[in-house]
């Protein structure tokens, strides 16, 4: 109780800084005066009286100090004092401070950025009630496919099972929303009526969707929008709920706004608008009765307290019993329930490991930054030995010095942490943009990120201060420094060289892999090619009108001045989405999923893909004319080995299985990944399909492709203002994003590598210069006794050479580990290029030897007499 009261009273003083100095001074002065007066009465002279009074009083400054300590909380006061002192010290050496803060900020920022992405995409559970009860329903196809989907009839059967507490289905699609005469492209989601109930998401206004909205096809044109979308597009209009909004070509009533923070189950890909599955036809799909089209993702909610494996077994048993039902699920399928509390993240396994590798890289960079600063600080603290010794001599406690050094480290780390967290958000956005998927990530700092940065900064601060503290322990006011075989500083400098070398080798390997990748021939010409996506289905085009539309588009775009060649395609090379169709190999009868691209006339000419034989598609390849297709060389080899494929017939994977004739063969193109070999590929004419799905227009410009954007917009508007044009970019940029991740990793490790290179130079210089200074007298004596310069250099140099040699060899070893770490980031394969190893080792050896040679040379030029007298 008493302690508590004292504590609070002191805390008040310590925090408000309201030390009652006046009271102390007046009281002490009064005391001295009374004593002096008494001494005078006792017959002393005034001066002597005062002197005696002061003597009797005791060490006045120390008493004042303990009086002040008594007033405030000593530890808080000391801390404040330490911080002030540290700040002054750091301001005195701005270069050191700048270097340290910058590298810490980079290290902490990079880690925080990766952490933001990891936390958002991989760790954070969905903002719904009891997210851990959610399961993601898939089946044994998960072994071979990233996320197998299901047909609506299958979902209808599955929904009748009683094991789970509800099963919801979803399908993501782009939707055009008409807002004040403008068309906004939104991320839509067709969902079953029980979606919100099953997921456990509420609304912030209006109501959510209910099973009643999802009964009869086309009967309930209602939609719920996300809070984000409501703010972004509708300016948080309170009167929106209940109003009608045009989606694609149909009017829907907005019945609610989803709860804040809930934006669907796909963390990186937020949903803007939810529409009942029963309205799928109005949004251009016709899949409710299609038993063979697998398009739906299914999520379920476990009954409280049940286990997902048991639940999966129970569902499979139930399905088995129903297998005689109207639309039996395929008996070979075994449902698998995966944890669904994080929803379905668009991060594939490959990206996940890439992200983890990036995390490891950032962690390595931060450790390196700490090592760098520690070694710099150690050099600096060596220069401050005298200051420390004086402070010890005038009575500072050793623990106080330690605290002082620790505070300096923490102040540096705090500065680094603040700047680091400032750059973390933009860095995270850059990271995400390199993931080559459309992720609309909320990259603001949250509490976990702030905690992470705080923790990291504290650790970094301690790490930075550790070495100076260790070396300060050996300082004494009267103690001479003993000669030690190996000091902590030697170890750190070795470590620094090693890490710098691994980082440099790793970085140059990454840079090389980007360069190799750039030089890979993708099979098409990416330069000057503008691409943009058009979605006629969203504007209400159906199978009957679509060809007229595409013809008009081709017609109009060809008129654009500066457009040398124009075409259409369903998929773009190296874009994340591909289309595959089930084809039957005529040679073996085997059924294969093969990449299939719907392309317009003059596609191969526009992309610069060489025709090997036959002809290109033309405007005359229409539905009425003979079905044709074009294959690539790989496919020709697989399907018709040793034969001329031109003129061969093959069954199309469409309903009715019509036969199409191979009209041409083209050179292989890398659609998937520049690293891989191009796979087999079918090209089918756009104008022979009945689909009105979105297509990408390709325009080859004679100059800057972006100069054509306006003309392109105007041309499309002339045809139909309701068809939205989106994802406008160039093929070159598309190509760039496909290795942006490797480039980022290369930049990150390169930047840290170069900083490490410079700093390890400084480290070696510092260690050696210090050794020379300490041994100046020793050197002088040796010289006086006739040692030659070479002897001196050897005597001092042996140590430095050993440090460098150990560092370099550890570095080479580390580089192997480092490349292992970043292997997933390296496209173009993991290349342990010997030349890189040798040249980087040579570079680092050169820099370290240079840094080492300067003080050694200075030592050999010492004047023997002056050196002996040196103290």
């Amino acid at each position: 109780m008493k302690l508590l009261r004292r504590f609070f009273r002191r805390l008040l003083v310590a925090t408000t800084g309201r030390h009652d100095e006046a009271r102390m001074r007046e009281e002490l002065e009064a005391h001295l005066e009374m004593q002096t007066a008494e001494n005078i009465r006792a017959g002393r002279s005034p001066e002597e009286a005062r002197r005696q009074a002061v003597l009797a009083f005791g060490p006045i400054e120390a008493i004042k100090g303990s009086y002040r300590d008594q007033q405030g909380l000593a530890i808080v006061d000391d801390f404040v004092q330490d911080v002030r002192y540290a700040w002054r010290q750091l301001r005195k050496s701005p270069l050191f401070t700048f270097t340290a803060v910058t590298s810490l900020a980079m290290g902490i920022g990079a880690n925080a950025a990766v952490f933001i992405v990891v936390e958002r995409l991989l760790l954070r559970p969905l903002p719904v009630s009891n997210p851990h009860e959610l399961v993601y329903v898939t089946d044994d196809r998960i072994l071979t496919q990233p996320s197998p989907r299901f047909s609506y009839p299958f979902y209808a059967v599955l929904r009748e099972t009683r094991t789970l507490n509800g099963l919801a289905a979803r399908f993501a699609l782009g939707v055009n929303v008409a807002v004040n005469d403008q068309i906004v492209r939104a991320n839509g989601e067709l969902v079953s009526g029980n979606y919100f109930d099953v997921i456990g998401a509420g609304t912030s206004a209006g109501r959510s969707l209910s099973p009643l909205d999802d009964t009869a096809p086309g009967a309930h044109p209602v939609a719920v929008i996300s809070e984000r979308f409501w703010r972004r597009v509708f300016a948080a209009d309170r009167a929106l709920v209940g109003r009608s909004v045009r989606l694609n070509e149909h009017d829907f009533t907005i019945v609610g706004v989803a709860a804040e923070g809930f934006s669907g189950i796909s963390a990186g890909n937020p949903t803007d608008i939810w529409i009942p599955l029963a309205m799928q036809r109005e949004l251009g799909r016709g899949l409710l009765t299609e038993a063979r089209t697998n398009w739906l993702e299914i999520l379920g909610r476990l009954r409280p307290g049940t286990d997902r494996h048991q639940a999966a077994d129970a569902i499979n048993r139930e399905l088995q019993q129903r297998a005689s039902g109207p639309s039996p699920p395929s008996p070979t399928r075994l449902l698998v329930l995966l944890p669904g509390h994080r929803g379905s993240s668009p991060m594939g396994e490959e990206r996940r490991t890439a992200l983890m590798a990036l995390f490891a890289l950032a962690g390595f960079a931060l450790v390196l930054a700490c090592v760098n600063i520690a070694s710099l600080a150690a050099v600096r603290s060596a220069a401050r030995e005298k200051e420390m010794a004086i402070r010890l001599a005038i009575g500072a406690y050793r623990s106080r010095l330690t605290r002082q050094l620790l505070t300096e480290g923490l102040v540096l780390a705090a500065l680094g942490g603040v700047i680091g967290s400032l750059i973390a958000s933009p860095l995270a956005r850059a990271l995400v943009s390199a993931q080559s998927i459309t992720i609309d990530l909320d990259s603001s700092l949250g509490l976990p990120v702030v905690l992470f940065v705080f923790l990291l900064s504290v650790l970094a601060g301690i790490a930075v201060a550790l070495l100076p503290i260790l070396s300060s322990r050996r300082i004494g006011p009267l103690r001479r420094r003993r000669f030690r075989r190996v000091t902590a500083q030697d170890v750190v400098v070795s470590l620094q060289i090693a890490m710098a070398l691994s980082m440099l080798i790793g970085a140059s390997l990454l840079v090389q892999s980007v360069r190799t990748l750039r030089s890979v021939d993708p099979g098409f010409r990416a330069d000057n090619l503008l691409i943009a996506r058009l979605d006629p289905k969203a504007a209400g085009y159906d199978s009957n009108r679509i060809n007229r539309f595409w013809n008009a588009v081709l017609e109009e775009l060809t008129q654009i001045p500066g457009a040398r060649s124009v075409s259409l395609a369903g998929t773009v090379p190296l874009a994340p989405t591909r289309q595959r169709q089930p084809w039957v190999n005529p040679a073996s009868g085997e059924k294969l999923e093969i990449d299939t691209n719907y392309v317009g006339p003059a596609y191969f000419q526009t992309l610069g893909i060489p025709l090997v034989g036959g002809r290109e598609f033309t405007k005359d390849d229409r539905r009425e004319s003979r079905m044709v297709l074009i294959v690539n060389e790989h496919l020709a080899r697989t399907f018709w080995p040793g034969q001329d494929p031109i003129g061969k017939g093959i069954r199309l994977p469409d309903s009715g299985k019509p036969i199409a004739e191979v009209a041409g063969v083209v050179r292989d193109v890398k659609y998937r990944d520049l690293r891989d070999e191009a796979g087999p590929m079918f090209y089918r004419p756009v104008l022979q399909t009945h689909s009105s799905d979105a297509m990408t227009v390709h325009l080859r410009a004679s100059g800057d492709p972006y100069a054509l954007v306006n003309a392109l917009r105007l041309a499309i508007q002339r045809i139909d203002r309701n068809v939205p044009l989106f994802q406008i970019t160039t093929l070159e940029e598309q190509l760039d994003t496909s290795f942006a991740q490797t480039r980022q990793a290369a930049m990150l490790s390169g930047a840290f590598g170069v900083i490490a290179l410079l700093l390890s130079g400084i480290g070696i210089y510092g260690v050696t210069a210090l050794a020379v200074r300490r041994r100046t007298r020793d050197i002088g004596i040796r010289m006086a006794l006739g040692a030659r310069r070479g002897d001196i250099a050897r005597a001092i140099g042996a140590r430095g050479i050993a440090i460098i040699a150990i560092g370099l060899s550890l570095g080479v070893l580390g580089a192997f580990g480092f490349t292992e770490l970043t292997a997933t980031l390296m496209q173009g394969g993991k290349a342990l290029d010997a030349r890189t190893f040798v040249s980087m080792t040579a570079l680092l050896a050169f820099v370290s030897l240079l840094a080492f040679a300067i003080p050694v040379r200075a030592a050999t030029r010492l004047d023997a007499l002056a050196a002996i007298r040196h103290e």
Partner: protein
Amino acid sequence: MRRKKDVQQGSLALMVLKTLDVLGPQHGYGLAKRIEQISGDVLSVNQGTLYPLLLKLEQDGAITSQWGPSDNNRRARFYRVTAAGRRQLQAERRSWEETMALVGRFFEVKAEDVP
């Protein structure tokens, strides 16, 4: 030369409390003098060390202080023991007496007393 004994903080606090209790409100200088007198110069105190101690006792609530005129009409800080201070003094005194009695018995013990 007779060496003066160092005064331990704890016993100094007790002396302060006792002095204030017996003599009533005192300023710092007065207290220092009284303690010197009572201890008969056996105990040497750096007079100044009294002040941090007074502050501590005040924070503990054992004494209170206020400004008042000193004998030579200077402003001085006068300290007075509080009820809590008296209770503390009594408690300390009891424990002191018990300790003394205990230690005393040990000094009284002679070898033949131990069975």
